[in-house]
Structure formats: C-alpha cells, structure tokens
C-alpha cells in the first residue's frame, strides 16, 4: 500500500507542489469568473501581460533608439509602413510600434505595483484600525482624514517635480495618499466581521490576534481589497499619463503617457499622425476599463444585491 505512494512522491512531487501553489495563489485572487465583463477584463489583461513579457520579441526596435536611414538622415515622422516601420516613427525618430509594445511594460508595472501598494496599505490600515480599535483606530482614521484632504493630482505633480522624473513617483504618491479609500472601507468591513460569532469564539478560545486576523478576517476582506486594487490600476495609469502630459514624466522610460505627451508636443495632431496619438490612448482606455470591468466582477461577488 505504501510503496506506490512513495513512488508517486518521486520527482513529480515538487512540480505538483508548485502547480498546487500556483493554483492556490490563483484561487486566492477570487477571480470573478462568472461575470461577462470581468472575463473580458481578464482577457484584456492576459493579452497585455503577454505583450509585456514578450516585448523584446514583439518589438522591432529599441523604443528609445534614435533611428536613421541608410543615408544618415533622421528617420522621423515616417508614416505606418514607410521604410518598414509598422506604425511609423515619432518626430524624434523613434519607432512608434516598439514604444507601444514597451509601453505595456510600464503600464503594467505602474498599474500593478500601485494597485498592490494601495490594496496592501489600505488593507493593513483598515484591518489594524478596525480590529484593534481604540487609539490605534483613532490615529489611523485621522491620518485617513488628512489623506482625504490632500488633493491627489497636485500632490503627484509636486512630488514629480521635486524628485527626479520617474514612473515610480506616481506609485509613491498613490501609496502615500490613495490607501485612504481602501482603508476606510475595509475598516468598516472588519468592524462588522469582528462582531461575528466565529471571531468572538476564536477570541474567547484564546487564539492570537494575528491568527484571528489571518484565519478569519483576511479571507473575508480579500475581495474588497481586490476591488479597490483593480480600480487603483486604472488610477495609476491615468495619473502617470496626466503627469507625463504636464511635462513631469520620465522620458527615459517609455510609457503610453509619455508617448502621448511626445506626440502632442510634436504636433502630431497638426501632422494628422493618428497612428501616433490614437493607439496609446486606446491602450490606456482598454487597460483601465479592463480594471473597471474586473472591479465590477468583484462588486458582484461582494454585493450580489447590486448584481442586476
């Protein structure tokens, strides 16, 4: 009886372990798979993630490389298809298609880190404030009040102007300010959870706070964190684009916001260079609304009443 079990545990076991871990991790995301919109959102994300991962294979050029023709002229303002540039080139002689492809990386990087920061910080604040109550709660909630009093976009502008231009400025600003919404909502959720019988029971039976939080509270607030996280993705990408447009962006990292800024500063409108300023806009819309779609999926999980 025991030998086949041992055999099965052979070389395959660790891989199966990883598989299970991946599956569990996947499951713990509580992906809203029963909602059409949410699935559309997830598919959009999947496509963008693939593009980001394989950007070096997909892109035809280095997105920051200044391109020249065979006769050493700047290859600027090429129309799509001209001289082999799929989507043409910018006024400074960069390949639009490659920028669009690499822009996916920045968008996902900014969006997902910002989402993780917002969801993580907001959840921690919310859980700590809601669970422990008292002074901790008072202090954290006053901090949230203050965060609500700071206008976000101006804050990012100031931050971006004072620090060296970087896409991370947006992420830092979001981490500093935008945890507030998540924090408040999760706190009130924790307050109701805390008074539930099973939490009371766990507490009476002497479980440690950490254990109660991880075992009983965390799983219940996860979908809520994800809801706010998926909205934060959009916020981050839109904010980065606005900051770039206002000239506080990082020109050494290619992002869609940077592309739009570059296009408008180079009079892409007057040049009728639709191939230049329309695709980044569409990409932003796609990825941001994908986040919204997914958030609606989470909303359905959370508030089934709202469903219809």
């Amino acid at each position, binding site marked *: 009886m025991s030998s086949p079990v041992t055999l099965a545990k052979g070389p395959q076991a660790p891989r199966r372990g990883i598989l299970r871990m991946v599956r569990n991790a996947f499951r713990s995301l509580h992906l809203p798979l029963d909602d059409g919109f949410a699935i559309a959102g997830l598919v959009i994300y999947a496509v963008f993630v693939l593009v980001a991962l394989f950007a070096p294979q997909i892109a035809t050029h280095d997105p920051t490389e*200044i391109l020249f023709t065979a006769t050493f002229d700047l290859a600027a303002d090429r129309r799509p298809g001209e001289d082999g540039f799929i989507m043409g080139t910018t*006024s400074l002689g960069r390949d639009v298609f490659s920028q669009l492809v690499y822009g996916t990386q920045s968008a996902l990087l900014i969006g997902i880190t910002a989402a993780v920061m917002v969801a993580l910080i907001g959840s921690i604040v919310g859980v700590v404030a809601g669970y422990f109550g008292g002074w901790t709660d008072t202090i954290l909630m006053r901090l949230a009040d203050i965060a609500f009093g700071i206008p976000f976009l101006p804050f990012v502008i100031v931050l971006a102007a004072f620090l060296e231009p970087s896409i991370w400025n947006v992420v830092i600003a979001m981490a500093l300010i935008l945890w507030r919404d998540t924090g408040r909502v999760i706190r009130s959720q924790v307050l109701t959870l805390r008074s539930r019988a099973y939490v009371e029971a766990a507490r009476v039976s002497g479980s440690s706070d950490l254990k109660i939080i991880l075992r009983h509270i965390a799983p219940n607030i996860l979908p809520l964190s994800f809801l706010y996280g998926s909205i934060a993705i959009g916020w981050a990408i839109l904010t980065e684009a606005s900051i770039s447009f*206002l000239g506080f962006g990082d020109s050494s990292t290619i992002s869609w916001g940077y592309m739009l800024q*570059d296009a408008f500063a180079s009079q892409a409108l*007057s040049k009728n260079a639709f191939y230049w300023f329309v695709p980044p806009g569409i990409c932003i819309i796609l990825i941001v609304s994908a986040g919204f779609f997914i958030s609606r999926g989470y909303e359905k999980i959370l508030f089934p009443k709202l469903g219809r």
Partner: protein
Amino acid sequence: MRSLIHATALTALLSAAGSIATAEPIRTIDLLSRPQAAQPSEFQFVQIIAQEWRKLGLDVNVRVMPFEQMADIVWFNRDAWDTTAWQMVGRPERSDPDEIVFNLFHTTTAADGFNFIGYLNPEYDAIVEQQRVTLDPDARQALIYQAQEILAADQPNMMLVHPESTYAFDNTVWNADTVVEQGGIGIRNTWTFIGIEPLGDQRDIILNSSDNVQAINPLYISGGVDSWVTELIWDRLMRIGPDGLPQPWAATGHEWLDETNIRVTLRDDMMWHDGVPVTVEDVKFSFEVAGSGEAPMYGPFVSNIASIETGDDNTITFTLTNPSASFLTSSLAKINLIPQHVWGPVIEGLSTADENAESYQEEMPIGSGPYRFERWATNEEIVLSSNTDHFAAPKADRWILRIVPNVEAALGMLRSGEINFLADFPGDPGVLTEAATADGDLTVVSTVDIGFRYIAFNHRRPPFDDPAFRRALSAAVDRNLIVGAAFRGFAQPSYSVVSPALPFWHNSGVDSMETGIEIAQRMLEEAGYTIVDGVLNYPDGVTETLPVE
C-alpha cells in the same frame, strides 16, 4: 554604422598597444539634460552625443532633470558635475558681444558668476578686458576675433548650434513687406510691432505666448515674454536696430565728449501716456533709480556710470568710471525711461520697506512708448493700444498677447484666425512651414539666433581640464547631425559663441571643424589616452583626482 565598425577595429589596435601601461580608466561621465517634455531638442542632442561619446570608450550616463535641479548642481555646486547641456538665449542687448565673451569665460566670474565651467586663461582674460575699453570698432573687432580663436583652440565648451527662431504671421491680415526681420532675433520684435501694416479690417496684432507674463515693470528684468511688453510701453534712449547695432530712439543722437563722457540729446516731442511731457529730469531719474538698489537687476547696466548731468538744451551727459565700448548697447539701449512723477513717490516709499521696486506692479503702467497699457487678464491676455501721439506711432490699433500653453492649440488658433501672429512656437518648425505651404495665407520666417546651445565641460574635474580631451570630445560629433536630428534643420552649426547673426563680430575663420569618430579617436590617441578592454583610460601617469564636493 560605418563609424562603429571602425571604432571596434581601432579599439582592438589600441588595447593591444596600451595594455602594458599603468593607465587609470576614466570614470563614468555624467551628462545632464533637461526633460524631453520641456526641451525636446536638447534631450535629443544629448542622446546623440552620448551615443557618439560611448563609441570612444567613454561610459556616459545621461541624467535628465528639471532646470531647477540642473541649475542647482551646475550653478551652486560647481565641483559636482562633469558635463551638461546648456543654453544661452538671444536678447537684443546681447547684440554686443561683450556680455557673452566676458561673463562666460573671464576668471572673475568663475567663482560664482557665469563662468561656471571654471575656464581660467590669463591670455584670454587680457583680451576680453581690453575689448571692453576699446572704443574704436575695428580695433575692438580684431580683439573679439582673437578671443574667438582662442576659444576655438581651447574648446572650453562644445558649441553645437545657433537655433533658428521661427515665427509666422497671417499674410492676409498683415502686409508682409512691413514685417521687419531683426538680425539674431527674428520677426517678433518691436520694429515689426510698430511698423506692421494691416491690410483689411483686422487691425489688432493678436499674438501668442506659451508662457505667462510675470510682471509689467520697467525696473524688473523678469520673464522673456515680459520684455516684449515692456519694450513697447517704455521708451529707451536708444534701441537695437534690425541690424543689431544701437540706433537713436528717445535720443536724437549722442556724442562722445571724451573716452568717459558722453552727451545725449533727448527728443522734445515726447509725452508720458498720462499726458505729462518727458523731460531730461525723467531720464536722469530713470538711470539713477536703476542704480539705486531698488532695481537690482538693472544695477550692473549702470554701475559704470559715475555721474549724470542734465543740460538746458534737452541734453544729458553721462560720466563713466571706465571707458566702455558696449555702453550704447548695454546701458542706453537697456534702461527704460520712467516718469518721475509716477515713480518718485513709489521709490521713496520703497526705500524704507523690505521690498524693492521689482515687487511693485503699477495698476496702470505709464510709459512713453509706442503702445499704451490697457488691460491685463491674469494668465490669459494683455491688451495694449496704439499710442497715436508717439513719434513712431504703430500702424496697428491694438497689440493683444494671448497666453496659450498648448502648442497644438497655438497653431490651430493661427490657422483659424484667433491669433494672427505666431510669436512663440516651441513646437516642430517643420509643421509650421508645411502649414504655410498648405494654407498659403501664412508666412513663416526663420532667423538664426544670437543665442546658442552647447555642452559645457567642467574644467574643475579631470579629464575635462585637458584641452586635448575636450577637443576630441567636441570633434566626435558632427554638428550637421545635431542640426538635422535634433533641430529638424532649423538651426545652424555653431563654432563660436559670437553668432553669425552678428556679422560684424563673428569670426568666420573659426567656422569649421573636422568631425568624426576616427578623428576624435586619433586625437585621443595622440594625447596619450588609451583603450583597455573597451574602456577609455587616462594617459600614463595621470591619476584621477576629483575636487572635494
């Protein structure tokens, strides 16, 4: 591509030859640039230059930062940087080469002045000091020529281009023949605004600026756009003419009594905008206020004046401490004439206050110039109206400056007629010329600027203290490539700080340079620099010691 192949071949040769030496590798060199959003051309040429320098075996790190941070490093931490992109803008008073050739390179300005690169050359100092006091134009020209030759040999900076200023106007509204192109400045100038003639019913000059107007104050040198306004509201004794030379304006003429005394005669037909006549006492007052400390930015322009006397016959006599060749340009054509009856009490009040005259914004600015002040809508528009009583009364009715931060919108407005004079265009000039060809009713004029773009080397830090190294770096980059790739053709290669837009002062003898990676490599090789494992090394025996920051 071609040069790259050569580079690798040469690298192999050099590394074989120099491998036995005890040479020290050159550290990573920083190259500072402003962001692309603010300065697309600069960002672009910095990328190109970095690409080229890397082919020499230099490790170049481009650092992009906003101007305030860049200036903080370059200006206030003079030991802390290697190379930076920099810009000198063209202004009418820079039509006299003194400010540039002296301030940028003289030893006295190295500590905290404009010689932030730390260029120290006694021979050069002597020449530029001499030109200051040489009143004879030809003799002075020879000295300025000589100074340019020294700079060309030393390459304290890597000169890149004189950009072209490109402006446009609606030729269905304005008579193109009456638009004046001022050398080194372009068509957006006071002469145009006075002389431009309307063809039809639209008699208002409506022009744009992408930047806000900071102040309308005759005693404050504020933003670049502000000077467009102040030059129209206030008169000066002289004005820089379209040819770049000072010519009589409020003065009918001048006469050097000796090397340090100059007598100027004031016109007798001038009135302030409030109807009070302009007197020599007003003129004296204007120069005195400029030197009083209440207008600190104007101080340097009158610091050479020892005393001012007014005469009965509408004359003013200036006595100078030292002879000054640039006095007409930098003082007489610089100081705004202000009414004593308006500013007298103000200055008196300010003398005991913390603030100075720079903070004083008149509700209704009063000058004597060709345009009167009408209205100022914050960050939106400034309206001036023609002073029909002026000796050079404008042909237009009004001069309306619109603040349009969006370049794309500015061009759209020009095409739709919302503005009829494009006076500020930070965008791609190629778009303008194309629009002009397409529309037919736009005229675009490009003018080579007095100003220039360059890469500044920090002489305080090796290897930039070595002229040979600077020469090689400078020779590595083809200026025509910069013109084409960063300025889209709207610039001229620059080899001298004195612009070809100033033909009298520009030494065309320095207007050429052999460039190319191979040439640069040969120059480095000759100076003893070697390449080890693809990295450029100092000549044998030279060690890298950086100043303590």
